[in-house]
């Protein structure tokens, strides 16, 4: 397919004496959607945090776009192309939808040195506001841009959060349970959005999700974690037919999903 965007090898992480990640290796190409699944406590979130820079691995290395990043702080990884959304959508509740995006665009402009750190402009640049409006239209939030983000419906808040990550032009987008807390109708709309984003922008999407329907319809590759170890990794078909995966994970999850 395309070139390798993310490579991580031999990641170990433990909290105190409890090992959470054991020799985890993962890689992603542009345009690929990669799902990490596993039972609760399997280490999915820790893997996410290790890749995004919220925690540092005890050993192993991570490469993004050929740059070693395992010791780089989270905000620095964002600057070289890691976008992230959270399990519970995080937006700025006291700001309007438009202001949320303006803050994100201004952050990007600042780390790209297109905007001075301190300026004496009291209102955002027109170009910034126009870009924000345009993206809100694209994301179907155009008619809500003056509403407070805190009173948006949950699905819309998730979309706003995704939009805020997208304005940073990420190479990799990490979505932590993008469907959590959504209605069924919202889920299919969100899945469509994610598919479109990955295709149109050539972004590598890494996601965790409990809804197996979503996982198998979205992902090109699936990695299964159990007790911090990768027990299977491959195409959805390979994973679906893996006896090991069926044994410890998929069997009962699929029934309950």
């Amino acid at each position: 397919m395309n070139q390798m965007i993310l490579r991580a090898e031999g990641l170990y992480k433990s909290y105190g004496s409890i090992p959470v990640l054991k020799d985890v290796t993962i890689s992603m190409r542009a345009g690929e959607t990669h799902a990490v699944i596993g039972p609760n406590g399997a280490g999915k979130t820790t893997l996410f945090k290790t890749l995004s820079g919220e925690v540092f691995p005890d050993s192993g290395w991570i490469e993004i776009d050929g740059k070693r990043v395992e010791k780089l702080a989270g905000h620095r990884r964002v600057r070289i192309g890691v976008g992230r959304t959270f399990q519970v959508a995080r937006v700025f509740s006291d700001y309007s939808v438009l202001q949320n995006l303006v803050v994100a665009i201004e952050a990007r402009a600042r780390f790209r040195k297109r905007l001075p750190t301190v300026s004496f402009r009291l209102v955002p640049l027109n170009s910034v506001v126009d870009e924000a409006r345009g993206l809100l239209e694209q994301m179907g939030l155009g008619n809500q841009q003056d509403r407070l983000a805190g009173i948006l419906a949950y699905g819309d808040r998730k979309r706003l959060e995704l939009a805020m990550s997208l304005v940073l032009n990420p190479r990799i987008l990490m979505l932590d349970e993008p469907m959590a807390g959504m209605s069924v109708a919202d889920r299919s709309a969100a899945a469509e959005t994610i598919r479109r984003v990955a295709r149109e922008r050539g972004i590598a999407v890494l996601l965790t999700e409990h809804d197996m329907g979503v996982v198998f319809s979205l992902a090109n590759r699936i990695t299964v974690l159990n007790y911090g170890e990768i027990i299977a990794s491959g195409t959805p078909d390979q994973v679906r037919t893996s006896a090991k995966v069926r044994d410890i994970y998929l069997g009962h999850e699929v029934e309950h999903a």
Partner: protein
Amino acid sequence: MKLSFNSNWGKKEDATTGILLALAFASVPAWADKGLLFFCSVLLTHILFALSFNLIFGLSGFVSFGHAAFFAIGAYTTGYLLQRQGEMYPFLFWIASGLSGAVAAIIVAAIALRRSSGVYFAILTLALAELVHVLISKSTFLGREDGMTGIKRPVMGSGILQVDLAAGDNLYYAILIGAIFVGVVIYMLWHNAFGRTLGAIRQDEERVRFLGVNVLAMRIGVFVASGAFAGLAGGLYAPSAQLLTPDLGNWGYSALPILFCLVGGANYFWGPVLGAIIFAGLEYATRDVIGLSEIIVGMVLLIVVLAFPGGLIGGVITFRQRWPGRLSRNASSASLVRESAE
């Protein structure tokens, strides 16, 4: 309240409020006696002190319990320079005050802000401010517990353009001009992209971090700016008071800006301004009633905080939204960002 982002709505109100306030303060020498004039010059420095504090408290969402340390350091810096030197290059002593406040803030940030946040940070600032307080009261060259006296009111400028701050109301006007200048700078910081990002950090720092922002650097930046402005406020205070006591760095003095912000409304640029004016008004009105002053001030604070959790400005805005048209649209002048946040 629906507002379009790029309209100047709110900014115009703010400009009007600012100009009216400046004119009101400028008119004081025309009608007030010496005592009231001194009172107003102290009020101006308190307004600046509270505005500088609210950059971190209301805008950025973290608290320092020791902000008086910066005010005291600024005051003693200018005091020390003016004790020795009656004539100085224009503004040099005030610039020195701002710088000393900034340097002190850098030290506090390096010690406390890097490793703590929330209430732990607040307690650390309290401890560090108490250290400043003790150092001042043990330092002979700063006058120890007795305070620093003999602070001259300088002649500012050189050549033809000389202003003798000891003469007439010149010092008051100099303080007013300084306060307006710093107030405008703080207003800009509150409303530009830097301020917007700080407001976002207050709401969700993790989200801001994942917008590629170095949150710690932003916090240190605003803390140092706040320390510099508090130092400058102290510097303006020194030649006016002419007596500086270590109490300026005490925790009781650190509580003042917090109270001003809570009463006026910490979420609004004008909140601390209103709070400081109300407190000064109460203090002045009850100045002859020995012992009763604290009780009245305390009662007012209690009532305001219980009745208006968003301060007086927050209360007015809520009132206006619930019963539109009852109050004139110019009744309050909250900033655009905060206004739409309600």
